[in-house]
């Protein structure tokens, strides 16, 4: 399949889907993660367990949910638990292999900001409280992410690549990546590994061993280093063994498009479950 036959968004979703292993348990954020997680389930990972914060365990929706708690999620689930139980027993209890998150902003240490874009963020010396008191854009807030990121065994992040989203320091650390200095998880035995992979419409990034700075490990087909550098708000580095991401397969494209088609059909009905 040539690069003309799929969009950058599809490339992102398919690459994110591939990051999920069959047989793993995945706590799924809404939006991009949900799309990729369900694509994984419908393609290479039929036995992946998808868990949503609404309490639905091992859900197999036919269409993508618009919200985190659509009826389809419950109807197709193995079982549905209360939200306190979900966060206490299943997430904090250590039963989640992968937390799969989107975000509005990410920084070089994979910290996530979904709280506030600051009106006048100082270039250095990032301070979340300062940003919070001086909002330019109010974002929806943390939701499940702060504890998914620390209580899941590992985290995968997916978002579109741009200088607005990939910043040197997030205005506000809603959700811990590796902290302002990249070392915030060091020595903390009761929390997970944190972000192991960030998947965008341009590339795949991983935290560098020791520093935990995100570096580009794979470029999507047709994407140049310059494109990534221009879309990244810090002086992003590239792995020595830089890879090219595998092309989407015919089947992956087909499954994804069919999923989006039935989803659009369902959600555009006046009333849909």
């Amino acid at each position, binding site marked *: 399949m040539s690069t003309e036959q799929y969009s950058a968004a599809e490339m992102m979703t398919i690459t994110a889907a591939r990051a999920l292993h069959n047989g793993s348990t995945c706590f799924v954020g809404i939006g991009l993660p949900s799309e990729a997680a369900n694509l994984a389930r419908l393609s290479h990972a039929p036995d992946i367990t998808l868990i949503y914060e609404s309490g639905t365990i091992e859900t197999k929706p036919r269409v993508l949910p*618009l919200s*985190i708690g659509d009826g389809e999620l419950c109807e197709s689930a193995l079982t549905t638990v209360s*939200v306190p139980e979900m966060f206490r027993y299943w997430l*904090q209890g250590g039963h989640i292999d992968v937390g799969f998150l989107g975000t509005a902003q990410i920084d070089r240490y994979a910290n996530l900001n979904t709280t506030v874009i600051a009106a006048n963020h100082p270039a250095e010396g990032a301070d979340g409280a300062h940003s919070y008191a001086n909002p330019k854009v109010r974002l929806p807030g943390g939701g*499940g992410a*702060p504890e998914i990121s620390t209580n899941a065994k590992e985290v995968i992040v997916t978002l579109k690549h741009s200088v607005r989203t990939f910043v040197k320091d997030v205005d506000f*650390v809603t959700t811990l990546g590796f902290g302002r200095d990249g070392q915030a*998880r060091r020595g903390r035995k009761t929390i997970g590994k944190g972000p192991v992979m960030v998947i965008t419409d341009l590339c795949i990034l991983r935290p560098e061993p020791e520093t935990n700075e995100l570096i580009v490990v794979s470029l999507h087909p047709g994407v140049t280093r310059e494109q990534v550098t221009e879309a990244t708000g810090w002086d992003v580095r590239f792995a020595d063994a830089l890879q090219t991401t595998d092309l989407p397969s015919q089947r992956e494209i087909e499954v994804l498009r069919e999923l989006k088609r039935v989803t659009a059909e369902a959600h555009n009905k006046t009333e849909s479950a």
Partner: protein
Amino acid sequence: MAVFTTLSQAIADGVRDGHTIALEGFTHLIPFAAGHEIIRQQRRNLTLIRMTPDLIYDQLVGAGCVSKLVFSWGGNPGVGSLHRVRDAIEHSYPRPVEIEEHSHAAMANAYEAGASGLPMAVFRGYVGSDLKDVNPNIKTIFCPFTGEELAAVPAIKPDIGIIHAQKADKAGNVLLEGIVGVQKEVALSSRHCIVTVEEIVDDLGAGPNSCVLPAWSVDAIATVPGGASPSYAQGYYPRNNSYYKEWDGISRSRETFNKWLDEQVFNGDAL
């Protein structure tokens, strides 16, 4: 002990200006009709607690009922912003709204602690998050056995808890099924609990371990078919996803919102 009443009477009897109120329902079973009735009865200075403020709090905030919002994720799920909430926070329109911001895990634990009669919830949370720096209600405690640092937040104990459920039986026992969210916790932690239901039945038909609230654990029950619309009631009607999308347009400007308020809530068909 549950009293059967009308929604209008239940709100009139229970909700006072200045109350702290939780209207819960995690996407599913959101008590929209009860929210509209609070707007119609023009309650003021409410502190509203809810994990996902959603359209129902956008409406209450836009109608000027609210002075404080406690939440963990404020958006129109899958669609975008809550324009009325943002207008209140950013421009104090129609009134200023103070916010207290948490994570989902914190609020779920705080509801659980409220239902458990505890003063606080203890959980492994907010590790490395700046939310700790902007919310004085997030504190740290240490495990006396392991020394581990854990987060503590105050238990949620609303004056009034309002939920929507599928059904009640004639004795006033209430059954919730499907995505049950934090509703049992709201019912048990609130000083006064109002429940709207789709219908009253002879027999709940509940399994042995179903989510049932005994009649003596709730205070008022009102039958309001469709009371969770545009959210959904599993087994009764689906989520009106289109309405969630249309809300983006209605709520975007003060004019279109106020028109909606006037035409639909005060003088119209909204339940």
